[in-house]
């Protein structure tokens, strides 16, 4: 990869980041920023910078989660939103709210994580048993599975009068991110580092179980580590931001078109494009109906849905 491409990539991210910091209902006075007592500096530190960081962490985290998922189930259309991970995380969230109330956030996260791991593992084991020939069946069954789980979630929400709470986090929105309420997203950093260290193993597992065993790997352990990382990344985003559909599906696929599936090589780019895509969609959502905001999940749904259909049409195994 040439140095120019890296420089160009870095400047695109910087420009988007700067735009994200400067766009908002209240205009930032750049000169006043130097004075740490001003309201501009306060807005920047409490709202705009946390929002930017949350976008980058969630975008990179969910994209990496999708990449891992695709490799461990050997299917291009697998991602946290098409394998039940997100729906199980939401189920865990509502169970945590009902059982504990809104008290200990670490405990809440732990419960969400537990549900996400268990739900994803169930689906992955199911896939390993069935070995589908047709690639599109995997997301199809995954989405159906997710719908069943989310029906349970809705049931509990009705029963305990939490429907409004539920609808507020099924729609992802970065507007509510403030300093002090988004820091769980930093879990994406250690999770991504671990994913990078495990990259060669995930890639070997993506070729097949006997292929992975041949080079001395414990295939089931690699899958388990992958499921845990996917669950950590997806749970923290679901808890703090909400559901961002399609992101984990489309970013790894688009990156793979250009630099292939070798995870050690494409993981940094997957993280990068996840950040850029979410940043761009978030900026777009803030500008379309200014001064109101369109939630990012709507913008990304439209874009992601189109890309998803394109990927299915392109997939040679259906032809």
């Amino acid at each position: 990869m040439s140095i120019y491409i890296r420089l160009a990539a870095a400047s695109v991210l910087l420009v988007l980041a700067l735009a994200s910091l400067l766009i908002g209902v209240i205009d930032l006075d750049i000169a006043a920023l130097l004075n740490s007592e001003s309201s501009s500096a306060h807005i920047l530190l409490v709202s705009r910078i946390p929002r930017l960081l949350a976008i980058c962490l969630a975008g990179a985290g969910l994209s990496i989660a999708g990449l891992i998922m695709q490799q461990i189930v050997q299917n291009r259309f697998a991602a946290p939103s098409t394998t039940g991970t997100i729906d199980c995380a939401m189920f865990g969230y509502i169970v945590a709210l009902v059982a504990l109330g809104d008290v200990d956030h670490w405990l809440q996260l732990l419960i969400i994580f537990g549900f996400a791991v268990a739900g994803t593992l169930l689906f992955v084991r199911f896939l390993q048993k069935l070995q589908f020939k047709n690639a599109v069946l995997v997301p199809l069954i995954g989405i159906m599975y997710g719908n069943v789980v989310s029906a349970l979630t809705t049931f509990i929400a009705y029963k305990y009068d939490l429907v409004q709470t539920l609808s507020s986090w099924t729609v992802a929105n970065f507007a509510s991110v403030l300093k002090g309420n988004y820091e769980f997203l930093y879990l994406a950093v250690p999770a991504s580092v671990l994913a990078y260290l495990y990259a060669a193993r995930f890639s070997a597992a993506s070729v097949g179980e006997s292929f992975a065993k041949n080079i001395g790997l414990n295939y089931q352990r690699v899958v388990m580590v992958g499921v845990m990382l996917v669950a950590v990344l997806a749970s923290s985003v679901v808890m703090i931001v909400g559901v961002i559909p399609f992101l984990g599906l489309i970013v790894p696929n688009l990156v793979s078109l250009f630099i292939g599936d070798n995870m050690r090589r494409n993981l940094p780019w997957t993280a990068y494009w996840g950040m850029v895509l979410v940043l761009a969609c978030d900026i777009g959502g803030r500008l379309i109906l200014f001064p109101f905001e369109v939630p990012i999940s709507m913008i990304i749904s439209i874009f992601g849905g189109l890309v998803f259909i394109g990927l299915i049409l392109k997939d040679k195994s259906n032809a």
Partner: protein
Amino acid sequence: MIKLSGLSKKYNDNFVVKDASALFPKGVLTSIIGPNGAGKSTLLSMASRLTNSDAGEVVIADKPLNQWDNAALAKRLAVLRQSNNINMRFTVRELVAFGRFPHSQGRLSARDNEIIDKAMEHLDIQHIADRYLDQLSGGQRQMAFIAMVVAQDTDYIFLDEPLNNLDIKHSVEIMGAIQHLAHDHGKAVVVVIHDINFAASYSDRIIAMKRGQVIKSGDTVEVIDEAVLSDIYEIPFTIREVEGQRICMYYR
């Protein structure tokens, strides 16, 4: 040397492999032949630790299979099956590099890269090193997978139907390459193969199976025999020598 003794595998009370014994010595190319459902692939999977056996024992270099550590064994024994996901976009070079994983754990040294280059040269695929697997023909892809096994640089190599769906040119090239591994590099190579004339022309030893049992095993001339093959495949065989090479005729 790998020694199989009394290996059996059952699926729902049906024996897929029953009481099979075999020897795979170093420097020798051994073919496993037999009709569909004879248990060839299952035997190969059990010998290469991909499938557990229900009875019997596999001894690899004087050590029973269950005492081997999986990661250590990957440096001594390589196995390639047909069930690989070929939709993943790896370049040929990236695929071959997986063969070095048991030795380098993913961090390729200069020596690893040298071995990867040599393996690709051995199969004559250097010119497609940077192409993605999904852009290749079936023959080229198979060559890449075999180059990966070569890069793994193990004493024992098991290949399950390496000629499946390949044209004649690629079949000849692959058989030549693996014969070279056995004879010139002293490796024990075991292939499951359907084409009886490829088995007759390239192998040193042949194991003939039918309905889960080893019917005959020995030097190629002992097994490529009209009576033996007619019994195994249940059709009449005529065998002729062409330029010192036994050729089976079973077409009518």
